[in-house]
């Protein structure tokens, strides 16, 4: 009988793979928007970890859900800030390359 969906390790590995893909994208992308997308992947991997431990280990299943909701709220705030930041940087520098934004280095 297949029962992969009822093991803790399955979800932990899924979360790990999402996290690692986020790191890959973070290093690989050369634009602020691509890095923001990778950050969301990393946060998603962390959320899956919280939910997996919540389902299989914790005595109170509400705690992990509360933490995942907080992660969602923080991700929303972060996305709003970063998108407006990208717009401001783009207006000033006319580029989206993170290595081109170096006014403080002069």
């Amino acid at each position, binding site marked *: 009988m*297949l029962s992969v969906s009822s093991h803790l390790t399955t979800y932990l590995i899924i979360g790990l793979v999402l996290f690692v893909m986020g790191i890959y994208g973070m290093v690989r992308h050369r634009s602020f928007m691509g890095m923001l997308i990778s950050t969301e992947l990393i946060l998603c991997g962390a959320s899956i970890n919280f939910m997996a431990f919540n389902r*299989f280990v914790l005595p109170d299943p509400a705690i992990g859900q509360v933490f995942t909701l907080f992660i969602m709220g923080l991700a929303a705030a972060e996305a709003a800030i970063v998108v407006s930041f990208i717009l401001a940087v783009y207006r000033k520098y006319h580029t*989206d390359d993170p290595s081109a934004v170096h006014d403080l280095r002069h």
Partner: protein
Amino acid sequence: MSTYVFIAEALFFAFVILTFMGAILAVRARLLMHAVLGLAVCLLGVAGLYFYLGSIFLTMMQILIYVGAICILMVFGVMVGYTPQEIAESNFKGKNRFLAVAASFTGFFLLLIPLLRATFTPALEKTGDFSLPWLGETLLYRYCMAFELISVVLLAAIIGAIILATGGRES
């Protein structure tokens, strides 16, 4: 009965494949808009995984907040901030593929080894359940301070986003 179990497992694998394919598209797409769409697909798959982890509420919240709000915000960011040619060119300008592969493989194995060696013992007795009233009670009684703080953080983020996005528009 076993037919239903088989269907449930097949659906689980479908959600996992959806998640991974979306993540690959989000990380490797050449156009930024495709990357945002891949992220949306990936987050839909994760919503399905939340369903298998027992929380229907978080499934709906994931679809509403992530797919419905954050991805739309990113689409707006891509459409407002870039000209079409830059959308095509701005991704993958550098040649740091080796660095990316090395970083991700190192992270993967560093985390996979302790994950496979650890043993997690489940709690002996459950003190709560997955119901929505219990979740709301926990959120607003036990984690009331964190809830209020995150409201303040969201407010500050919104005000900051407005100031950042509108400042310097005249020049």
